[in-house]
């Protein structure tokens, strides 16, 4: 397998822009993905994630800017880029009317592997990704998770150095999601570079070495996922039995989180976002509530969601 050495960029782009009619899908995106790492593009619906992937995979031509993948320019050397990438699009692009094994064999044949080699490779991949038993069944009968896995496996047939995965786990149950995560980790262990998109911060957190948050076609933040989360803090929620205790609970939350608690009398709930860098631990919180005489029915600590990241980042931008 050919690989790019560690200090080189597997994907780089500058000023990448794309509009469809009046809609600006991507508005000057810069990317620098070191070889052998997992890079996560995080963003809500319509942020431009798929557009970015399609530009990098040579499916769409950019209006502005340039991009290089595996060292080749996507506009001038699309053929060489295509020889270096694997793409799993947003919707599992497997052929339903044929078997899983046939799907993989066809991909091998399209990559000009010999008939025997294509079949051998299909067997090997089915085995490795737990699809061997289902290999000879029609894909129509596969579960969503199996389909997704097959789709992912289909872009590994030629062991490409760079992989693009567009929302590889959207719509999957937690177990299937875990299986996809394992598969992605296995890939990077083999030295591949993975650029994936996701709507879930947790997923980016689990998989990606670096995350870029996209909104309206622009990068609003990038860096290691831990740093993004640390910059946002933890969301703490307390539900009480008696609405009269809300002020007391709010007092405790203010002290523990350093944030500004918001009370909701109807739901008898008070909620606060901890200050960045401040650690909130459940036992300490419960003890503090107890000491204040608050009868808490439910206490929850939530790591920041994508929504929190957005709220925090957009608030920060407005403040700046």
């Amino acid at each position, binding site marked *: 397998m050919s690989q790019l050495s560690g200090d080189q960029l597997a994907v780089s782009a500058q000023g990448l822009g794309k509009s469809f009619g009046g809609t600006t899908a991507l508005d000057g*995106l810069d990317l620098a993905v070191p070889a052998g790492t997992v890079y996560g593009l995080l963003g809500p619906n319509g942020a431009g994630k798929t557009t970015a992937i399609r530009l990098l995979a*040579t*499916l769409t031509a950019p209006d502005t800017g340039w991009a290089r993948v595996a060292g080749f320019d996507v506009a001038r050397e699309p053929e060489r880029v295509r020889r270096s990438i694997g793409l799993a699009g947003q919707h599992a692009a497997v052929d339903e009317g044929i078997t899983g094994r046939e799907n993989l064999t066809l*991909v091998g044949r399209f990559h000009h592997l010999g008939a025997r080699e294509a079949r051998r490779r299909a067997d090997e991949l089915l085995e490795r990704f737990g699809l061997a038993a289902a290999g000879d069944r029609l894909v129509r009968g596969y579960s969503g998770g199996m389909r997704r896995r097959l789709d992912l496996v289909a872009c590994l047939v030629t062991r490409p150095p760079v992989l693009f995965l567009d929302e590889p786990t959207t719509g999957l149950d937690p177990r299937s999601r875990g299986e996809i995560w394992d598969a992605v980790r296995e890939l990077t262990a083999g030295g591949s570079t993975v650029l994936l998109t996701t709507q879930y911060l947790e997923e980016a957190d689990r998989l990606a070495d670096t995350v870029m948050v996209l909104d309206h076609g622009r990068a609003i933040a990038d860096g290691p996922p831990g740093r993004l989360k640390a910059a946002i803090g933890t969301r703490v929620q307390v539900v009480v039995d008696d609405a009269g205790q809300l002020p007391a609970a709010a007092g405790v939350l203010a002290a523990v989180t350093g944030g500004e608690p918001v009370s909701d009398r109807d739901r008898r709930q008070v909620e606060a976002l901890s200050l960045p860098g401040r650690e909130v631990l459940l036992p300490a919180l419960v003890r503090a509530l107890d000491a204040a005489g608050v009868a808490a029915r439910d206490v929850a600590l939530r790591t920041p969601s994508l929504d929190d990241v957005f709220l925090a980042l957009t608030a920060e931008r407005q403040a700046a």
Partner: protein
Amino acid sequence: MSGSTVSTTRPARATAPGGPAAAPGRLRRTALDAATSTTRVLLYYRHSPGLLAASLAVPVVMVVLFGYVFGSAMRVPGGGDYREFLMPGLFAMVAINGITPTMVGVARDVDRGATDRLRSMPLSRFGVLLGSALADLLIGVAVLVPLVGVGLAVGWRMRDGVADALAAFALLVLFRFVMTWVGTFLGLAAGSEQMAGQLAVLTFPPAMVTNVFVPTGGMPGWLRVIADWNPASAVVAACRQLFGNPTAPASAWPLQHPVVATLLWSGLLLAVFAPLAVRKYSTHGR
């Protein structure tokens, strides 16, 4: 937090990717990709033989419906048996009806991302489309063979010798090939399976405004001009001539020189739709 920063590290060049060591030459690659693409379509049919049966059912129903129900009241101008007049028309009908599955299949591939995946691979786009056109052609032959059997059973005959009959079949296969490219383009233009399914209904009138079921002579003037110049009418007339079946007299040039007209129409349609299809395929979603 700051926007993204671009590292100044030089982009790395990948050496030859894993898998195949050297890219095969252009022509060989086109052939390889076409072969794989053909296999892909044929695998579909192998797993769903019902599709073939459905493609055959339509013309067989037409044989019964037109050959016996309406046919009992039909007189072919210039004389001859109506069922013998009808069969070449139904053979051509198979080619025309082939547009629908092609269109819907192509649009489904676009819908489901299969087209994107193929386009992200280093393969010949013309080869991929050529391959599925060839597969459709084989399917067309597979439907034609039993239909010929049905024709023989209801009294249709090839009366002008083997060479002429083979020429007629060659024209039918050519026409099917042409229709596949038309279908591919329409499917890509439709862009979604649902749209393609709805557009497919529109292929019905052009298939009917022909000499397939009735001679064009009895149609009102403007409709007759359309039917006379319909490429499908030329194919049907050519087959009637080559099989030695009854041909209703017609004065329009394409129907007086149906073989030449069929070849010209096929060349023209191929020259228009094949490049359009490849272009549409390559630039899809740009």
